């Protein structure tokens, strides 16, 4: 390895570390947690209001198979998925605005809506 190589490695590491701190800042941060939105292929397929102490779970159909999402108050996770790598499942719980769960092959994103929260739910 040449000297230039080593400099390159150092440079790359620097960027990675910087990215670690910068990326959370770049993402859309709302101040309040609001609704949980699930988008599939660019379309919103489900909006779940955040209700404290309310748990729910549901299964949706992805491109080639189903996946199950669980909501517990203000946090959400992908419980199960039939996608090949299950990275979305390994993501675990997310609870902060700006955090997302993404399943690339199914084109699914789960994120927190940065609009004003629902004060109550009727129905």
């Amino acid at each position, binding site marked *: *390895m*040449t*000297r*230039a*190589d080593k400099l*390159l*490695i150092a440079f*790359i*590491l620097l*960027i*990675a*570390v910087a*990215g*670690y701190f910068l*990326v*959370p800042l*770049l*993402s*859309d941060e709302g101040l309040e947690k609001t609704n949980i939105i699930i*988008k599939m292929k*660019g379309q919103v397929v489900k909006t779940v209001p955040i209700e404290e102490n309310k748990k729910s779970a549901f299964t949706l159909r992805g491109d080639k198979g189903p996946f199950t999402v669980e909501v517990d108050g203000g946090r959400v996770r992908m419980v199960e998925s039939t996608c*090949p*790598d299950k*990275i979305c499942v*390994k*993501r675990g719980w997310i609870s902060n605005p*700006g*955090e*997302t*769960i*993404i399943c*690339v*092959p199914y*084109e699914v*994103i789960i*994120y927190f809506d940065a609009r004003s929260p629902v004060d109550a739910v009727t129905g």
Partner: protein
Amino acid sequence: MNTRKLVFLSLLVALGTALHVLEAMLPNPLPFPGVKLGLANVVTLLALYLFGFRSGLAVAVLRVLTGSLLSGTIFSITFMMSLSGAVLSTIVMACLFRRSESFSILGVSMAGAVMHNIGQLLLASYLIETRGVFYYLPVLIIVGLPTGFLTGYISRLLIRRLKEYVR
């Protein structure tokens, strides 16, 4: 293009395809998308070093095309990501290669691996319309270093042997 070059490049594409398909079959143990050994990039490096930028690019693109075709991911998001990663990484590697007095093939390869991952994320964020993918960026960048090192090392060994047969 002489026949020898044509045959060589075709062999590289075929080899790259086989490696691509093989890697696609391996499950991803880590919770990060797009983490691969990247062995298929060896053929890109070989083409680049032995025949130049255009050949390198051609091999990279063709490898992704036929590899995706055979592993059933063609025209899917995964395919787009691989393609953008491969193209971006080849371009960057070619740039570094031009100045190859400073950078060894190891450095070039590592840069290529990192750029490959970045390219994949860029496209994913565009297609899925979210910046949330960049959550994985720091990790993927760092992971690119050892995989790039490995690919570079293998390529270097091969290039030494193959140099004579190519001229």
